[in-house]
């Protein structure tokens, strides 16, 4: 049995940290203040994705349907593989079109000592003469944990509540409250969309580490089961792992990059993509989503092919 524990925190104060996500490293180290060393060392943490608490509707591939108020503020039931990704994509396809989805989903930026901080709430529609009509959207952080030793999970709510992320923590920045948590057995999920699929693409949910300055980390190649026209198409970005006062640079293939899938075990690949692949997977890097390419979506495959004029 492979279990993950989903964790959903509410941001109580602005966040001055990594703007793409709360890194798995930050979550791992915050948990280290709460846990015994023996327990802590078995924990693996995903990156924490920012989620607005807003009205939403389940995407088509989701096991559930319908519109929910404040969908982003708690964890819906998980029955199928695709359910796990509801809050793992920055563009949040579940947000309703009847609301100003881009206005609600883009982070409100507040400058704190010249540094851009992500606001813990977004206030919109507030002209001077209509203060009562404002809409406030709270922000949440979605992450999950798994453990090398299955007896370690689930972590108790007392351990998960009140963690702090990002910079200026002495001033209260990045304070969170535990909002929701649940355990999901990965082997019990419905993978039929993958079992029935014929061709697949892989979406990098978090960066994949190729090279790391971290002591004793091995450099890795682009996996053989990624089908890539031309490696120059794989957008790279530097990331950092900070430990104590030391900063280690990581060269990664950036999140958001989409590649073809050349392997023949999509379900196994999907499960390993959840517990993550490659260097620093313990701290959130290398999370992948496997997506079937349906006949009416042949364009998805075309999207990652080179332009005609350059072949």
């Amino acid at each position, binding site marked *: 049995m492979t279990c993950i524990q989903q964790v959903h925190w509410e941001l109580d104060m602005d966040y001055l940290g990594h703007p793409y996500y709360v890194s798995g490293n930050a979550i791992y180290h915050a948990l280290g203040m709460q846990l015994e060393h023996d327990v802590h060392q078995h924990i693996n943490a995903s990156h924490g994705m920012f989620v607005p608490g807003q009205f939403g509707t389940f995407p088509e591939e989701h096991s559930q349907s319908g519109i929910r108020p404040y969908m982003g503020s708690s964890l819906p039931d998980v029955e199928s593989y695709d359910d796990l990704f509801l809050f793992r994509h920055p563009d949040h396809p579940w947000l309703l079109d009847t609301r100003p989805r881009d206005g609600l989903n883009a*982070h409100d930026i507040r400058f704190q000592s010249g540094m851009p901080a992500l606001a813990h709430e977004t206030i919109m529609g507030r002209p001077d003469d209509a203060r009562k009509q404002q809409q406030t959207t709270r922000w949440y952080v979605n992450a999950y944990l798994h453990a090398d030793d299955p007896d370690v999970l689930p972590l108790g709510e007392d351990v998960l509540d009140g963690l702090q992320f990002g910079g200026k923590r002495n001033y209260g920045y990045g304070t969170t409250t535990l909002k929701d948590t649940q355990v999901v057995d990965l082997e019990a999920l419905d993978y039929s969309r993958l079992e029935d699929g014929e061709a697949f693409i892989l979406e990098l949910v978090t960066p994949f580490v190729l090279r790391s300055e971290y002591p004793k980390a091995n450099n890795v190649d682009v996996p053989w089961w990624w089908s890539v026209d031309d490696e120059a198409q794989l957008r790279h970005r530097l990331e950092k792992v900070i430990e104590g006062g030391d900063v280690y640079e990581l060269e990664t293939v950036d999140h958001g990059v989409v590649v073809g899938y050349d392997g023949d075990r999509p379900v196994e690949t999907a499960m390993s993509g959840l517990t993550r692949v490659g260097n620093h997977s313990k701290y959130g890097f290398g999370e992948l989503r496997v997506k079937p390419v349906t006949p009416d979506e042949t364009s998805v495959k*075309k999207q990652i092919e080179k332009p005609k004029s350059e072949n």
Partner: protein
Amino acid sequence: MAENVTLSDFQGDGGQDVMVAAYRHDAHKLNGETHDYAPDIFHGVPVNQTVPHGADGDASALSRPNGKPEQTVDNHETHYRLSLLTGTSHYDPEEFSRPRLSEAINDLLTGSDPKAMHRAWITSDVASGFNESIYYPYTSLKYHTLLVATLLDNYRAGHEFADLLLVVDDAEEIVPHRTVYAGDRFALRIDESADGQPWARLGSRPWRSWASAWKRLTTHPLDVNHDKHDMVLDANLRRIWSWSTALQYIEDLETRRESR
């Protein structure tokens, strides 16, 4: 691509340059008139005409949802754009003082050289002050118009939507009717060929795919390795679906960066 409006229909209607007509097609939004009652002449030139090849409908689909529009922000129902950056209307009494506004609108609408009109729109700050629909107040009339022009120019050259790419150019590289954003650090173009520059496909059909295209670019034109402001900009560009909203957001943040 909608085929119901053909080029010959259009040319029977006064014979003006098709590209010029694209830059004039939403004049009523700048002039505060409703579409149904908008005059078809402004300062002696034809305006508010239908754009051929369905380019207007396709550009709209890039920035707004399909179907019957509904008001999405309760207390905002004007063509003054709401800013994602500040949360407030872009309306500025000084910027939009009537004489200054009239002069700027003349520059945007009454030219007859299509390349000069492209330049006027791409460098206009007044056009940034308006949205493309009162129902979607974060969208931008400036970038909607530039998207209409680039789709029209590409369709006229025989390029199909599915073959179009978002291409990142150097700052000085402004391609007439194809460049949709021009800033001090980089430019963005929609074209069939990337010419060795970073690129991403727009997709098989026009839809609100900004985040999807941006996150697949082969290289981002921002310093996302070291610059915290660029990382924040990039993070938000991965969240926005509407093309005109996103292009306007880049302009707004880049303008603020220069003024700091």
